[in-house]
């Protein structure tokens, strides 16, 4: 089985380890991975800021470049939601609408893909650590629910998986929101982190690059990086970029 892995802009530029982890997780499930380096951004920032017209060009480019038969796998729920649903705001017609219809049917979030194709039983990995799982909003509410991630995480041996009582509440990233009202965004993130740190995790695992940047940025800014490392869940399986238990900073 062959898939086109789309590692979106934020992950590509700021969290390449997470991208590598996504690729290697797919490969460990026996999936052949190809990467089209012409694909950059799905256009989400402009749409979420209320300027769908400015995202249109990016959407059209995405649709054209993804005009093939392969499943497109994305380790980011918000980008999947964008391509599946929000492209509907672009008044697509003719060939573009056709392309969107095709892409909608074969774009998957990473965990969602592995679960839907029944590939999780091929995955075996160990991670001897306390891991707090926090649900990324789009992954949870618009894409895969919490089910797919839970099924995948069952394959992770040795980990104690925990959830804080705020596990389903927004980390405060929200794209442009994080810049427009930074104090609010940070206050939301701080509250989630406080709840998570009480559980004394080694790793805090999320499903979207934006959420990882938000929470790791606050941990670092508050001088708490030694307490835990914020990662994309794929990293738990492959070890890419994981800091060893006692390394701290």
């Amino acid at each position, binding site marked *: 089985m062959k898939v*086109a892995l789309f*590692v979106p*802009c934020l*992950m*590509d*530029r*700021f*969290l*390449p380890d997470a*991208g*590598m982890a996504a*690729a290697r997780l797919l490969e460990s499930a026996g999936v*052949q991975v*190809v*990467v089209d*380096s012409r694909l*950059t*951004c799905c*256009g989400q920032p*402009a749409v*979420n*800021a*209320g*300027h769908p017209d400015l*995202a249109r*060009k*990016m959407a059209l*480019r995405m649709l054209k470049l993804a005009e*093939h038969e*392969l499943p497109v796998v994305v380790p980011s729920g918000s980008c999947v939601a964008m391509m599946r*649903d*929000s492209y509907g*705001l672009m008044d697509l017609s003719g060939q573009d609408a056709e392309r969107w219809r095709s892409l909608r049917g074969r774009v998957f979030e990473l965990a969602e893909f592995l679960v839907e194709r029944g590939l999780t039983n091929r995955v075996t990995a160990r991670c001897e650590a306390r891991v707090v799982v926090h649900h990324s909003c789009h992954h949870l*509410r*618009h894409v895969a629910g919490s089910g797919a991630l839970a099924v995948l995480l069952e394959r992770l041996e040795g980990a104690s998986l925990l959830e804080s009582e705020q596990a389903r*509440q*927004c980390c*405060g*990233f*929200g*794209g442009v*929101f*994080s*810049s*427009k*009202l*930074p*104090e*609010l*965004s*940070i206050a*939301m*993130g701080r*509250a989630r982190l406080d709840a998570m740190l009480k559980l004394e995790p080694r790793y805090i695992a999320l499903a979207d690059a934006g959420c990882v*940047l*938000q929470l790791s*940025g*606050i941990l*670092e*800014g508050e001088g708490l990086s030694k307490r835990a490392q914020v990662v994309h869940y794929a990293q738990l399986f492959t070890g890419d970029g994981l800091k060893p238990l006692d390394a701290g900073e």
Partner: protein
Amino acid sequence: MADLRDIVREKLADNALQAALARALGIVRGKRTAAVSELASFEDAKAVAAAVRSNAVQRLKDYLPQLEARLADEGTHVLWARDAAEACRMIVDIARQRSVRRCVMSKSMVAEEIGLEAALKNAGTVVVQSDLGERVVQLAHQKPSHITAPCLHLSAAEVGRILHEKSGIELSSDPEKLSRAVARTLRPVFLDAQMAVSGVNFAVAETGNLVLVENEGNGRMGYTMAPVHVAVTGIEKVVGTLADAAALLAVLPRSATGQRATCYVSILPPRPFPGQERFLVLVDNGRSAAFGAGPMRDVLRCIRCGACMNACPVYERVGGHVYGWTYPGPIGIVLAPFLGPQEVRAEISDLCSLCGACTEVCPVGIPLDRLIVLARGLSHSCRPAAVVKRERSALEWFGRAMGGRVSYRLSHLGHKLARAWFPKKLARTEAELGWSGVRTAPGPAAVLFRSRFKRRAAAEDGTADEGSGGEV
């Protein structure tokens, strides 16, 4: 209007507010979860309630005249108002013609929306709010901060102080003592008021019944005691049949206060009670504009339960006053483009991280987070042109940077170089974007994922174009 970011900062630093919000929302979220779990399936119930409301909204043009005819045939006066001023004028006229000195008002969001209390006061009528929370904010000269819990932003101690200073009630911070004391002060007001103003939760087109939902009994007191009853409501509050209203009653209290049913649901007949006059004022005030606004039409499904604001992580941090008008929270953001005052329309949609918690709990299936994105689009015309231009240029720049393989790599390289050569300038930009200090901005990867992936593939099988790792 002060800068939204400043107002937000102020609320974040207000420890009393933070404590009040945390406590109240913690309780109400827990109760909602328990109450909803008594339904066979919330998703199924939501589908039923959503269908009831979307059918009703879709058929407004038929239901409204049907309702009007049922009521008018039985002697209830039906008045139509295009906007807030017109609605207020009509109700002030009613009060004037009947020499109403004192009017009791039970909780009505539409009355709040149209500024009815001020209008009646200006015309010389004493207005007394009779819902406990509304009475507290009225005495404090504040505005409600929540649509079902008006003084949710206040601690019991603050409420006690307000009641002591403004109403002479013995100083206390015991909610029970305070609530009973306020009720005692209102009893003579009910007995003496010449007019009662209420809202309407559902108006039933087929039978002409007006359905009023409440817990305290103040709504019942109003329409039972006063010789004139004015019910004021938005034109969207119509449903087809009593069975439709029953379906909504199964989800409204569970979503609002986490009750199976509120203490009182009054189903008023189309014929006024003997010895009483009844008016129904149907207020448009932007609703027909929402009706004509494509997917935004769904905002008219709202049954004002407040579940969206209870679930909202932004509301949880800043409370309702930050939204700047009658309807706070997610529903306030999507109503603002049609019903909101001009100055609110510009920035209110910024108060959302698009997490979708509101959509999850909305009992009538309004896709709130998706509509908030559309509301942001509608907000541009209300913001200063220069601000919009700046935002668009930034996004255009971003679009160009992302627009091709070369520009993408160049912009990444630029980021790396800026970090090495102009760290102070970069830090300033990051600070402007809110990524500095307690939230560190991420540094650009030394090597992009895509490059690493390609290199690995090349190292593994000597080609970058075929097999695992090749391009599409």
